[in-house]
């Protein structure tokens, strides 16, 4: 699978408005690192690759990995293969705050020195994700125990509330703001630069490194809270860590790239259906497969209607919905038997 990811990265780096062949790619990279001094590529290609394409591909890999892995972890947490990080309010909180920023055009944030100002939207979205998730989490803790059903129900309630508030803001928005809101909601990796990549990196690396270590405990949790406890799993701590890491990865991703649906839902499913339900494979595998799928989707998004580009959220939903329906139908048929 790692090979698959590497292949995708190379493919995505090469294809685009300015074409770069594989030897050229290697030559450019070699020159940058200082190993080789080959020529045979144009300066324009170097500029495109290093400043535009590569950060975008890396961003796709990071966000895909983050969305995939948190999807797998959250499904394990809820013991429900249809769960998604969005269910516990992560995405809706992020989008409410982002829309709030766009509509109110908060002057305070603009005047905050230029550098932070340009990150304002992302920061607001991330803060929103943290706020809603912590509200949902607090609501669902009773006597120190996290009640999963309550967690899900409070998630639905918060999602409804933030949805309504977002709607209200959209209603108040001007035409130009509406356009921004719509594009943000559809998701895009278009804003990629090395600055966004480095900003996002820790938020993705920590969950990608941390969640696989909890795979064993998540398997045990699949048998039930009490059973996991009997097997020596600190269930309370486990749930808290998973929610924290999922918020980290998804909140930061939404902040950078807007709402990108379905990756977190379908990726763990594909792995479960083709290999095993063992989280020790599903969790790290979801990071890799998520990265592959999102990078490919982004490749399609920016090449399919050249010179314009399609919002990536549209593509993931277009591919994701049939898969989702397929899951529902097979689940239904299985239950009938």
């Amino acid at each position, binding site marked *: 699978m790692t090979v698959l990811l590497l292949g995708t990265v190379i493919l995505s780096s090469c294809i685009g408005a300015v074409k770069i062949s594989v030897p050229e790619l290697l030559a450019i990279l070699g020159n940058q690192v200082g190993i080789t001094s080959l020529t045979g590529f144009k300066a324009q290609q170097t500029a495109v690759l290093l400043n535009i394409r590569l950060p975008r591909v890396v961003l796709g890999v990071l966000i895909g990995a983050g969305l995939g892995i948190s999807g797998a972890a959250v499904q394990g947490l809820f013991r429900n293969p249809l769960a998604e990080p969005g269910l516990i309010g992560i995405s809706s909180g992020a989008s409410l705050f982002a829309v709030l920023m766009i509509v109110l055009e908060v002057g305070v944030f603009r005047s905050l020195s230029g550098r932070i100002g340009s990150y304002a939207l992302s920061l607001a979205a991330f803060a929103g994700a943290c706020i809603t998730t912590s509200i949902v989490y607090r609501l669902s803790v009773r006597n120190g125990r996290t009640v999963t059903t309550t967690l899900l129900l409070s998630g639905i309630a918060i999602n409804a509330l933030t949805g309504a508030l977002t709607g209200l803001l959209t209603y108040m928005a001007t035409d130009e703001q509406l356009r921004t809101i719509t594009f943000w909601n559809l998701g895009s990796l278009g804003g990629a630069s090395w600055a966004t990549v480095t900003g996002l990196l820790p938020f993705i690396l920590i969950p990608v490194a941390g969640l696989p270590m909890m795979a064993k405990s998540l398997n045990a949790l*699949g048998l039930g809270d009490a059973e996991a406890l009997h097997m020596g799993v600190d269930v309370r701590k486990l749930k808290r860590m998973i929610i924290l890491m999922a918020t980290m990865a998804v909140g930061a991703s939404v902040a950078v790239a807007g709402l990108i649906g379905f990756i977190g839902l379908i990726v763990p499913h594909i792995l479960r259906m083709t290999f095993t339900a063992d989280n020790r494979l599903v969790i790290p595998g979801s990071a890799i497969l998520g990265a592959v799928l999102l990078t490919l989707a982004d490749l399609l998004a920016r090449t399919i209607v050249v010179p314009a580009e399609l919002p990536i959220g549209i593509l993931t939903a277009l591919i994701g919905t049939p898969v989702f329906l397929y899951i529902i139908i097979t689940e239904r048929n299985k239950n009938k038997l």
Partner: protein
Amino acid sequence: MIEVNELTYIIGRRELLHRLSFEAKSGELLAILGANGAGKSTLMKLLCREILPSHGHIIFRGKQIQHYKLSELARQRAVLSQQNTISVSFKVNELVMMGRYPHFEQVPAVRDIEVVHLAMEETGISHLSLRDYNTLSGGEQQRVQLARVLAQVYDCPDACLFLDEPTNGLDLLYQQQMMELARRLADRGYCVICILHDINFASRFADKILMLKEGKKVAMGSPVEVISCENIHETFSINVKLMACEGYSCPLVIPAMIQNRL
């Protein structure tokens, strides 16, 4: 092995267990009997450290149970719960391997794989090894869970095993096999504590019986000591007859005629 002292559990204003004291030793099979709502499950949860007592102590191997680390406890006691439905589809061998989770970090050792095989053989499910757990019958699922529980404490022959109504939902043959296995494990040195509903099963297989009513101890002792019409009436509010049976030291319990029948 496990010692319970003046154990009381209060939730809200309801007292579910009242100053309960008893002891269970290694190599002993203790059966807990009682009507619905008598506090059997609460007692089991306390013994497994799922919940902590309001008053009193549970001393497990000479140390108060709450002073154990969860992972430490997991290597010395295992629990077979009543409800065993799972929503994710695991294969049987994957599920039994989960019993070994407290023993390894990321990759199972050779011994872990060995123990999984032994536990599956012991419970007679080796042939199901590659099946999806959710496609098994209730009896098979119960035995898979038992294999998992057994694998968890396989290397610790004086560990504690808690079985919550292990014969529930099983047909007569499986019930018998389940209790025979529990008996064998006790003979091997495990301390087996088991909630049962069938009084005759309890007297046939257990070394000691604890009878509970409304969170209080009605009687505790060997089957011959505690199986009496009075104790059973006190515990279950039913009238029974005792019938001596050839080859059994303890009399069989059968329901008496319904009292107010005309």
